């Protein structure tokens, strides 16, 4: 038995993963009255949309796509979101963090690292209440971080959207118990068992469209903490942070204020996958960034984010 090499792992998507995720999508539609798919515009939620399409074809996706718009998204992401909703015929609901700020429910952060990541939770919980969603489908994966490794596929949240690790139900075989009390809701993670590599290989095999910022392009950036940040009106720059042009792409799609770019010439998906695999070995900078945003996400989750 020889060790597997990086190249061996490109383009190998385990098809049974798709079957399992489609099964979960159908359970959501059947067990809940008002489910929704939380859509961020990133590769994981794009994968969810594809799985939902497949689960109900030739019927339409029987639940809306919900996007919590921070107002700091990349324009390319918004453009892609609107295109995808049109393409799939799915209902699209957008709610704005700016509205939560205007209503005094959330307060804008200040300083160099100000972002609206944390504020999203307020808008999300309000949206859940507004539409009385009883199940929200999210794209979290267990391989993302250690705390996720124990989270259920059907994860029950209380009235305040909080997650109680001790109250989790055992999930046996493929049987999903979505019964909840009034006021509770469930976060559903259909791609729990996928790894980042599985997602990319799936996107490749399915020839799926993804936002253009995942691919190499020219962009004005600044350098901060050894990483490249997209220059935008939302970024609070210091005097010595002078924008310059670079050839970059983004590994994750978040807000312009908290998603770092990596220098890259990758214009097609094969090269991206190869880059991701080798990045795990050499591109420490970008990984540190991933870690940082993941840790932040874990805190948000306890407060009600997905």
């Amino acid at each position, binding site marked *: *038995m020889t*060790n*597997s*090499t*990086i190249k*061996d*792992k490109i383009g*190998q*998507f*385990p*098809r*049974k*993963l*798709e*079957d*399992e995720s*489609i*099964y979960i999508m*159908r*359970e959501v*539609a*059947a067990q809940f009255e008002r489910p929704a798919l939380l859509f961020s515009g990133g590769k994981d939620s794009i994968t969810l949309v594809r799985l939902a*399409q*497949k*689960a*109900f*074809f*030739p*019927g339409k996706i029987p639940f809306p796509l919900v996007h919590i718009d921070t107002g700091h998204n990349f324009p390319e992401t918004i453009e892609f979101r609107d295109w995808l909703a049109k393409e799939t015929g799915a209902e699209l609901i957008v709610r704005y963090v700016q509205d939560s700020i205007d209503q005094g429910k959330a307060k804008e952060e200040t300083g160099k690292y100000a972002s609206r990541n944390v504020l999203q939770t307020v808008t999300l919980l309000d949206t859940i209440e507004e539409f009385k969603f009883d199940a929200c489908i999210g794209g979290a994966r*267990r*391989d993302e971080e*250690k*705390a996720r*490794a*124990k989270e259920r596929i059907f994860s029950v949240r209380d009235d305040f959207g909080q997650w109680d*690790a*001790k109250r*989790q*139900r*055992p*999930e*046996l*075989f*493929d*049987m999903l*118990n979505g*019964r*909840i*009390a009034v006021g509770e809701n469930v976060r559903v993670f259909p791609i*729990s*068992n996928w*790894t980042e*590599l*599985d997602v990319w290989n799936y996107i490749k095999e399915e020839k799926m469209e993804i936002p253009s910022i995942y691919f190499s392009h020219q962009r004005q950036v600044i350098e901060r903490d050894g990483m490249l940040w997209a220059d935008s009106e939302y970024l609070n720059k210091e005097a010595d942070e002078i924008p310059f042009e670079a050839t970059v792409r983004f590994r994750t799609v978040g807000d312009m204020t908290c998603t770092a770019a990596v220098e890259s010439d990758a214009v097609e998906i094969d090269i991206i996958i190869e880059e991701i695999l080798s990045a*795990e*070995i*050499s591109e*420490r900078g970008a*990984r*540190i960034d991933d870690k940082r945003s993941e840790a932040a996400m874990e805190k948000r989750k306890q407060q009600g984010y997905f």
Partner: protein
Amino acid sequence: MDILRIATAGSVDDGKSTLIGRLLYETNSITKDKIEALESASKRKRLDFLDLSLLTDGLIAEREQGITIDVAHIYFSTPTRKYIIADTPGHVEYTRNMVTGASNAKVSLILVDARQGVVEQTARHLSIAALLRIPKVIICVNKMDLVQYDEAKFEAIKESLRSLVAQTTFVGQEISFLPISSLFGQNITQAADKMPWYQGNTLLGELEAFEFAESLAHAPARFPVQWVIRPKTEEYHDYRGYAGKISSGTFQVGDVIKALPTGQESTIASIEKFGEQLERAEAGDSVVITLTTDVDISRGNSLVLASDTQAPQLKDFAAHICWLDHQALSPGKTYLLQHGVNLTKAKISQITERLDVVAQTSSQDVDSMKLNEIGGIQLRTAQPIMADVYAENPSNGAFILIDEFSNSTVGVGFVK
């Protein structure tokens, strides 16, 4: 590329963390920055080797923070297979977690410390693997480095397990014994140069060679309907498709089927997946089936072959049960029974026995079942369930019990 699910269980000091860490390390599943972190952490601990157990130590840290980790999922892959390890740390709610973690597994990995030999957990683990009909058990005699890689020691442990294995195993279950050293990478993915007397597979070799898909495809055909697709668009005006995941066996276009519980017959007109027309589909495939005639079928119904006279409909039946809840099972109380996607009310009319999975004995004088206990029950359901005997067709023979008031999953049953 297929997926093989593995169940591991055990406490932190039996070398399980190191074994899992070693598997990840030698299959290139660990990123460079993590390895660097391991190197410096190992140095800080003044170790002259890489402490791979630290890789899964995030879990230990969480436990210290008071979060219960019942089942953790760990992923790695080779060019041919994706592996998912469901790891259940060994603490208080041991049996419950082991059963939960093992419920999807096709391989059970049992660790035995070469110095200590067989302990209570070994018996518990073997019994649960048998109850859940896990087709393959790999018993790793670990820490061989601490017994000077002594063949006699390995053989003695094998011998001491012989009668226990004979008591628990079932026909068709593969059991293999491997001498390993997780710490020094002996027999994990690389042959053991320190144990030239051992000629068998490495652990990864055993996993890669194990074939399991065949048996599922040859089991009786069962298709539980999850969702009825009726687009009602111009293009698909009269379309009616039954969506579900085949739980066992194979279906083909042209098969004459019957819908249970009504027994109405029809013929499969098409098997579809996202517009793609398939000739056949088998266990594990999520598909949409259309029929040549209009039949009244809804969620929770099952499609089986019309020729299948053995297809079960159970209303009063016996089952093994593992209790998962702090509130004990009370006979006479009504629970919700979920078999696959089918939900009905159920009453436990009798507890017939309680099993001691360590001593391999049973007691008949039982009036309740507590958390972590395994036993036998007799149940009655409001509607029939289309469940097979678990031992004959595991993928269609298990069910869960749900408390109507707390909504918790309180028990898991296996049809006898």
